[in-house]
């Protein structure tokens, strides 16, 4: 079943979070570099501030009820007392604010007269303070994408969160190196269209930001939250989309999932299911399941857990019903309980299974006084968590009649989405009183006007002209993570820019597609390789081989890779002798074919000298030798 996005009224809003390449963090002088290893750690417990407890916010209440211990890891140079929340924040980084203002000007957005720093509550531990510092820099404006004008909602400057480095149930671990790295958040007005047209919007915005040369590059430096909705559905927020090719898949998946949920809702309505009756009856069924030959059941019981069964009237065959492959309410419930650190959830449509027998199913049905039209859901775990989870399951099943619930989902690397948490209420913000407000004066704006980046097209054209690249290659190198290093190499060596650009784009991309680790190719390593090529120490053909050796972790340094590949260049004299030997060995062919023996000889020579000498040079030398012989 394929879906037409237009008939569903697909709407997608983007919120782009782009890390800036500033010399220091947003509120202190620490470096934005990622830490290689951590030296120290401390633990904290966050608690919601009082007024939060007054309002019913299931996510916050649950997080609090877990009273999670958060363990923070610090590294010298990349975090200080500020990140540890042991010192008040310093003044906002001028460089970061300037960059946010430049983006605002580039997007024709209206800069605030006075910028106020706010605290946005986040109590999942990703901020040591319990809030994220953020400021609204500009609002309104637009971005032109392939003839369409996309509205800008707001441009904010904020601090990045700490990096999750581990989550053993009960203890969440974060690295503080990323905390406080400046991020510009740009929210766009929702757009309609086909998923790949929508992707163009994100691509265009990303290019505009990169054109400023003021943003960080590489994996994780740009993250996209995507709000997806279809007709008659609520807005679903998908967090953490890191790559554009993932984006199209995610939009398609969400479209299908949301439409699937609407189809299920229609069926429930046809059946006249009264969802208010869901969860009217919840029973402890630990004794019934206790006899099951199920690993999951055993594990939960061994951990002192119990099982609660929820009666779901009228839902028989609906929890497992799949309007699209793999899209069913049952799967949503499975992810929902993960939020409560549980993994034991079963529903009647999938039973008997998992070591739970037909007799046990019947026993649960009778305990719940359920009829043939009814379904049930069983959730197992420690008492308090099972209670929270069963409340959440009841709410989710009740919401099924409305189709798509508003929630926050996480993007998976394969382009799907999973439930992350209930959608938070309106952002809870209050002023960050430790930092004075910042006036954004007209003179400040005027001074930045000439720093507004040129358009992507202009930049690509000038790149193409400057380095004599074709436009495709110029755009590829611009979109890649290697523009900076490319320009350095082009300035530093005599290697042809076209060659450098194609190695840094097509070749690296194809190695990456083979699943190799691209992160080992640092700018330093890349420069080293091309410097060696420039000096004649390696041949052109070796570049790719060295990339591969390093990405496969078969070599730690460029020199090791050269050795491992046997790629060190040989001298002209040695090559000359070697080619003479090859011709001697194949004299019969030469005599028989004359000049046409070239291809045979070339094959033999390349087998021996690939990566040690330049192919064109070998070709020329053999040709020369042949001509002399044949004459």
């Amino acid at each position: 079943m394929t879906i037409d996005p237009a008939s569903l009224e697909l709407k997608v809003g983007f919120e782009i979070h782009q890390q800036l390449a500033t010399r220091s963090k947003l509120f202190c002088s620490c470096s934005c570099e990622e830490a290689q290893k951590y030296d120290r750690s401390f633990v904290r417990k966050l608690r919601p501030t009082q007024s939060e407890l007054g309002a019913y916010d299931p996510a916050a209440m649950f997080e609090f009820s877990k009273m999670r211990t958060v363990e923070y890891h610090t590294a010298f140079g990349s975090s200080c007392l500020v990140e540890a929340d042991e010192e008040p924040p310093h003044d906002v980084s001028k460089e970061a604010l300037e960059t946010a203002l430049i983006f605002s000007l580039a997007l024709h957005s209206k800069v605030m007269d006075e910028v106020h720093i706010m605290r946005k509550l986040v109590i999942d531990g990703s901020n040591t303070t319990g809030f994220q510092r953020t400021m609204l820099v500009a609002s309104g404006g637009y971005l032109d994408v392939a003839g369409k004008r996309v509205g800008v909602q707001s441009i904010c400057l904020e601090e990045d969160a700490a990096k999750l480095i581990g989550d053993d149930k009960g203890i969440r671990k974060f690295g503080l190196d990323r905390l406080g790295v400046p991020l510009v958040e740009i929210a766009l007005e929702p757009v309609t269209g086909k998923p790949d047209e929508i992707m163009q919007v994100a691509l265009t915005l990303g290019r505009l930001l990169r054109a400023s040369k003021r943003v960080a590059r590489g994996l994780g430096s740009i993250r996209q939250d995507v709000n997806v909705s279809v007709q008659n559905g609520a807005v679903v927020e998908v967090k953490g989309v890191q790559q554009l090719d993932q984006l199209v898949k995610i939009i398609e998946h969400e479209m299908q999932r949301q439409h699937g949920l609407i189809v299920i809702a229609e069926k429930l309505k046809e059946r006249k299911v009264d969802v208010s009756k869901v969860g009217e009856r919840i029973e402890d069924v630990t004794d019934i399941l206790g006899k099951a030959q199920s690993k999951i059941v055993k594990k939960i019981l061994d951990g002192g857990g119990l099982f609660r069964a929820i009666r779901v009237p009228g839902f028989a065959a609906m929890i497992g019903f799949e309007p699209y492959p793999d899209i069913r309410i049952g799967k949503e419930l499975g992810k929902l309980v993960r939020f409560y650190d549980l993994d034991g959830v079963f529903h009647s449509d999938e039973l008997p299974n998992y070591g739970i027998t037909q007799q046990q199913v019947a026993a649960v049905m009778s305990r719940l006084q359920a009829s043939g039209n009814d379904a049930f859901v069983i959730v197992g775990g420690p008492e308090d968590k099972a209670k929270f989870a069963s409340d959440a399951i009841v709410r989710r099943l009740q919401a099924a009649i409305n189709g798509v619930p508003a929630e926050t989902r996480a993007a998976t690397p394969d382009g799907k989405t999973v439930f992350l948490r209930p959608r938070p209420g309106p952002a809870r913000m209050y002023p960050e009183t430790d930092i004075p407000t910042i006036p954004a004066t007209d003179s400040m704006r005027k001074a930045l006007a000439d720093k507004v980046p040129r358009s992507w097209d202009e930049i690509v054209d000038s790149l193409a002209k400057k380095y004599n690249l074709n436009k495709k290659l110029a755009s590829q190198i611009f979109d890649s993570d290697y523009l900076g290093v490319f320009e350095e190499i082009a300035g530093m060596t005599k290697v042809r820019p076209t060659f450098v650009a194609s190695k840094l784009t097509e070749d690296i991309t194809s190695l990456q597609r083979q699943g190799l680790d691209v992160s080992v190719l640092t700018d330093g390593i890349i420069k080293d390789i091309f410097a060696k090529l420039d000096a004649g120490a390696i041949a052109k053909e070796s570049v790719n081989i060295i990339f591969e050796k390093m990405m496969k972790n078969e070599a730690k340094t460029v020199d090791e890779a050269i050795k491992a590949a046997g790629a060190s260049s040989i001298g002209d004299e040695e090559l000359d002798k070697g080619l003479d030997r090859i011709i001697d060995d194949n004299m019969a062919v030469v005599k028989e074919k004359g000049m046409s023996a070239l291809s045979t000889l070339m094959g033999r020579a390349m087998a021996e000298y690939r990566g040690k000498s330049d192919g064109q040079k070998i070709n020329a030398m053999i040709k020369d030798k042949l001509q002399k012989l044949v004459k």
Partner: protein
Amino acid sequence: MAKQDSGGYRGAALRLLAKQGVSVGDSVRIATEDGEMSGVLMPRYESASEDYISIKLKSGYNTGILVGRIKSITKLQKSERAKAAKASEITESEGRPKIALISTGGTIASKIDYRTGGVHAALSASELYSSVPELANHASIDPEVLLSEYSENLKPEHWTMIADKVAEKVKNGKYRGVIVSHGTDTMHYTAAALSFALQGLPIPVVLVGAQRSSDRPSSDAALNLLWATVFAAKSKYAGVFVAMHADASDDAIACHVGTRVRKNHTSRRDAFESIDATPVALVRNNVVEMQKSEIKLAKRSENNLVAKTKFDDRVALLKYYPGFDPRLIDHTAKAGYRAIILEGTGLGHVSKECFPALKKAVDAGIMVFMTSQCIWGRVRMTVYDTGRDLLDIGLIPLSDMISETATVKAMWALANSDDAKKVMQENLANEISASIPL
């Protein structure tokens, strides 16, 4: 608009708001050259520029609009009082120990009004319990607001007020302990003051504060208050203590003896340290872990309270430094001070240029005491010539008494004894260490 609800606005901004009849909390629509913005009018901090009007937008962000660019302000809706969050009902169980909580300033618990961004102290018992619900497991808290001052504004007369209030609670007899919540900047001065003013305490009196304000989820206030309460309820020992984070983690709090503690960091949670001693106790997970210590603590109910709560503030604390002008001593003497605490170098020295001024002061009947700016360690004025000369002039060494503690003690001694010089050299409340552990 009345002065008291100007919301911090002054000048042109205030005139504009007054003209339109708009006050803080009202929903407004503001038109400027670039279009319109709607939001709730926010208060302005007194120190902020008077050229802007602050509003909270629907997105939750605050922003400032230049008054000069405003074409019109329209009031959309009058300020609505935020509905107060229902305080959770705590059923008080008779079994729990009663603890008196005296608050003097600083907010150990607070509420945030997300609509206006305002932070309010949460000081009633029910507010405290809903802020730190676990408190109810350990004690039945009896709160009372005595003062509402930043601790840098506290004076010796406030120490008297606090001491009298604590004495009242102690004499009441029903409390297992007293907690004094206090701004951290001068908490150690107040701790020393209470240590001298309230000798023979039969129960623990615990000062507690927060280095991170309680309006943030990461505040140290809750843990400090919680474990301070556990210490007040469970400690076998009596006396005056300061209870604050033991390190950067939300794990243990350290209990310091009131005369041996100092704020040694501007901002860290573990800013308070015991000088020349280890903290007498750590409290974590509801358990009081007494530490090995040279300090002799009185047992609960071992003594009877002797309250002498007066202070004489005619005491000066002078820190010596290279280039120190001896005339500062002359001025101090002339200004009517009765005692000078010198913070000398090393083992207790000042330059020989100060000798004549010191001699003049001593001869005029002013007591001059020597402490060390090294913070850690004892003064010993018989080791070098300078020290011996100073002793000859009549300076009185104060062993390893912390200079701040010495200043407070001198104020107390002058107000409560005819022989302050003698009292200063006696160990009354562990302010002098018999031996300092390695």
